[in-house]
């Protein structure tokens, strides 16, 4: 070393490590630090789990919230072809399970469902998804109520030829007797017609057991779906006594629907706690019967006084409206004796009673010494219906309902499936729709020679998985309801709202377990490891993780409002 005083200066020398080409940190794959990785994972929402028709509720709410009503409806009818009907008559268990209920108020899902159903009818939308491959097999569906219609519709979507039989001249099943103030007949007709128009060969007035036999169906079709419903009135008498002019509740409702008349009484007593009893009681009041009483040994819906007590199976809201309108309900009572003169009813003896559910069978008890007399000129049983064994006695084997397996197959049968009210459980329209869909899926699996694996009910994402700090409390939408004094005959009680209000309501959805596309993960990642895909066709998801740089801090999962991100150990 030393300064060279003589000669030219030496060129600068670059020592190893003293020089490099500049680069960006992008070549630094910090993803190698990761112990856990985030995954976008869709979980079942509680509403989906609770919906008997298995609707993907957060998906269609999202479409509507983003102002895509047509896509919303198309997503809705992928599960349920008659949303204008179910939006009106379903007791919406989805809303009871809605996580938003624990936050402010459940999303008014049924209002949205009804709105979309009505909008589709108004706009004349037709069902998507009928362009799949055609299958050669033909399937018979018996019963054109909601279960049969749903099964036939889904079978058509899968590409099968479908023949739909019904004993009555019109499709719709027991939905037909729902009074117009709850479900206008025209709404039902238009949705039913749209279902039939997907290429279903509909044979009305064809009754199983009369016009054709089960064996005919087995011979002529690759598979059979039975959805006959419950058409036979359960027998009714009080100590073997009966009024001479006995009318059954359901028969009166049919008479009202088909003929347009109902008898006028001074004071009618309807026996039963189900929807038929309530529908009939309210219809009678509307057609001029002066006083209508409903007698049931069950309790009013709401919190039962004791666990194990039978509660009226009628939809709670409808019971409430019946009371508002002046129907007099006598819960916890039964008719101990009919007071007859000649064969004419002049009154009944009411007695305190209760119904207890012990195991499978209800136990009815009445208490002597509590009798009171209620004058009346009509007693109308509406105590439920049974499966008509005509044509299916071989399958019923002395049981009151068709025994079905989880695969939808009737016990002991391979090619015969069943659903709807003729099977255990059920009783609501959306359940019938769901069982029809399920039956169609299972028939499809059978005919494609695949394994019949019923979907196990998904475990809904818990409330604690949502990050609620990102939501604001907002009042829920409610359908406009005519006050009791303004309920005019049979015009519909509830009216819907304009699109913007329904959009706002849909936007209240937490989107439990589904992506809200809120950009939280994209915005909050300290490492820029979340990339927006921006609707690229090769990436059908809103965001992807760039695992080259994700360090696995877990911030995105913690801050995801809807529980759509899960951290898993690094493989």
């Amino acid at each position, binding site marked *: 070393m030393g300064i060279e005083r003589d000669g030219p200066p030496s060129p600068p020398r670059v020592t190893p490590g003293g020089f490099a080409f500049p680069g960006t940190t992008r070549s*630094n794959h910090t993803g190698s630090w990761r112990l856990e990785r985030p995954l976008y994972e869709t979980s079942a929402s509680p509403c989906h789990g609770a919906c008997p028709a298995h609707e993907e509720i957060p998906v269609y709410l999202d479409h509507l919230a983003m102002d895509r009503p047509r896509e919303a409806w198309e997503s809705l009818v992928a599960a349920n072809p008659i949303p204008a009907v179910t939006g009106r008559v379903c007791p919406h268990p989805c809303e009871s399970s809605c996580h938003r209920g624990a936050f402010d108020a459940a999303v008014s899902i049924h209002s949205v469902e009804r709105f979309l159903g009505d909008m589709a009818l108004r706009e004349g939308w037709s069902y998507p998804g009928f362009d799949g491959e055609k299958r050669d097999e033909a399937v018979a569906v018996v019963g054109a109520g909601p279960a049969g219609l749903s099964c036939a519709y889904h079978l058509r979507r899968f590409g099968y030829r479908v023949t739909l039989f019904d004993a009555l001249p019109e499709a719709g099943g027991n939905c037909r007797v729902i009074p117009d103030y709850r479900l206008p007949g025209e709404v039902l007709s238009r949705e039913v017609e749209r279902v039939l128009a997907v290429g279903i060969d509909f044979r009305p007035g064809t009754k199983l057991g009369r016009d054709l036999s089960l064996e005919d169906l087995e011979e002529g079709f690759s598979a059979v779906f039975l959805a006959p419903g419950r058409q036979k009135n359960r027998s009714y008498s009080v100590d073997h006594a009966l009024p001479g002019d006995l009318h059954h509740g359901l028969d009166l409702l049919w008479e009202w629907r088909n003929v347009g008349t109902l008898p006028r009484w001074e004071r009618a007593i309807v026996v039963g706690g189900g929807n038929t009893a309530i529908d009939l009681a309210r219809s009678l009041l509307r057609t001029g019967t002066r006083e209508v009483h409903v007698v049931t040994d069950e309790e009013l819906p709401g919190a039962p006084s004791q666990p194990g007590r039978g509660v009226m199976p009628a939809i709670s809201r409808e019971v409430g409206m019946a009371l508002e309108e002046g129907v007099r309900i006598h819960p916890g009572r039964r008719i101990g004796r009919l007071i007859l003169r000649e064969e004419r009813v002049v009154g009944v003896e009411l007695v305190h009673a209760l119904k207890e559910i012990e195991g499978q069978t209800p136990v009815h008890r009445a208490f002597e010494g509590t009798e009171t007399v209620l004058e009346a000129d009509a007693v109308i049983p509406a105590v439920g219906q049974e499966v008509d064994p005509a044509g299916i006695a071989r399958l019923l084997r002395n049981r009151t309902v068709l025994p079905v397996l989880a695969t939808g197959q009737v016990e002991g049968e391979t090619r015969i499936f069943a659903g709807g009210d003729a099977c255990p459980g059920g009783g609501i329209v959306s359940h019938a729709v769901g069982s029809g869909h399920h039956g169609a899926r299972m028939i499809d699996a059978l005919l494609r020679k695949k394994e019949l694996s019923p979907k196990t009910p998904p475990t809904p994402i818990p409330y604690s998985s949502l990050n609620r700090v990102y939501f604001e409390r907002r009042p829920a939408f409610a359908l406009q309801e005519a006050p009791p004094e303004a309920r005019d005959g049979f015009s519909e009680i509830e009216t819907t709202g304009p699109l913007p209000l329904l959009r706002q309501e849909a936007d209240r959805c937490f989107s439990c377990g589904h992506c809200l596309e809120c950009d939280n993960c994209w915005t909050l990642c300290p*490492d820029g490891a979340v990339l927006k895909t921006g609707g690229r066709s*090769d990436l059908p998801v809103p965001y992807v993780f760039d695992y080259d740089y994700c360090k696995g801090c877990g*911030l995105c999962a913690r*801050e995801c409002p809807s529980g759509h991100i899960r951290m898993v150990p690094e493989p």
Partner: protein
Amino acid sequence: MTSSEPPSPSVDWAALRNSQPRFSGMESGHGACQGCGQALATRLVLEAAGPDVIVANATGCLEIFTTPWPQSAWTVPWIHSLFENAAAVAAGIEVALRAQGRKTRVLAFAGDGGTFDIGFQALSGMLERNHDVLFVCFDNEAYMNTGIQRSGSTPHGAWTNTSPAGKVRQGKRHFKKDLLAIIAAHGIPYAATASVAYPSDLRTKVRRGLDIEGPSFLLVHSPCPLGWGHDSALTVAVDRLAVETGLFPVLEMERGHVVETMKIRNPRPVREYLELQIRFQHLLGDSPEAREEREHLQALADANIERYGLRAEAPGPRDSEGADTVRRGGSRWG
């Protein structure tokens, strides 16, 4: 919207990354710790500032983790000189740009050490000489880069390696320096505080600071998972609590006057904030000393709420719960 399919391997990641609908001033691959609040804050500040800026950076974590020689995470012109002179370097750049008639905006970045303590003299001079610079302080409340030593910004009662908790002291004895009051005394056109828990608010303030002519100052509370001892997933949750307890007031000042505050809708007890952080673990016990310090910190938070009038009278869209409300479809973050 509902797929969890893993992305196909044929994705051109670089192209996807380059086509993101936001400006990336700090690239991925930087060496910040998992869940680093400062990395998040810097990304957000640069997104709001845009590409036409020059950054002068004081010594600190940010300078270290973005420039592992010979790489750089910066896509904007960036200079690091010393710990104490970020404001002076920025001031020089600003004057040079002005002389050339250029409109490029100048940012100075520093941590709390480079702002409250070591760089304070240069900062004060820059503000006093009215340089058109936005000075951003990423406040993680200690010298984290050198191994968690107390700074003038470390809050009262917090453990650091130089303010240990033991028999005599319950963490830091002194109070967090009221830097805002000092900044206010300079009478500059714009000064504000922000939190990584409220990105929209933070970005609005960056833009406001850059729009105003003359010196502006932004203090961004930036949790440090390593130095504060909290789970890396909780960076945003911890910082939200810093705001909702009142310990870190979020506000804006013009000419030294408070003109806007983020109201707290439901003030949270200070204990919830302390519980998440190891630096405050010694204050959670039942000893009289721990209890007294807890009550002391609660009193400091309450005093902030009172001093700045932070309690919300009615829920609003800009308060501590309204400001982070999500919107479906990504229109949330302005």
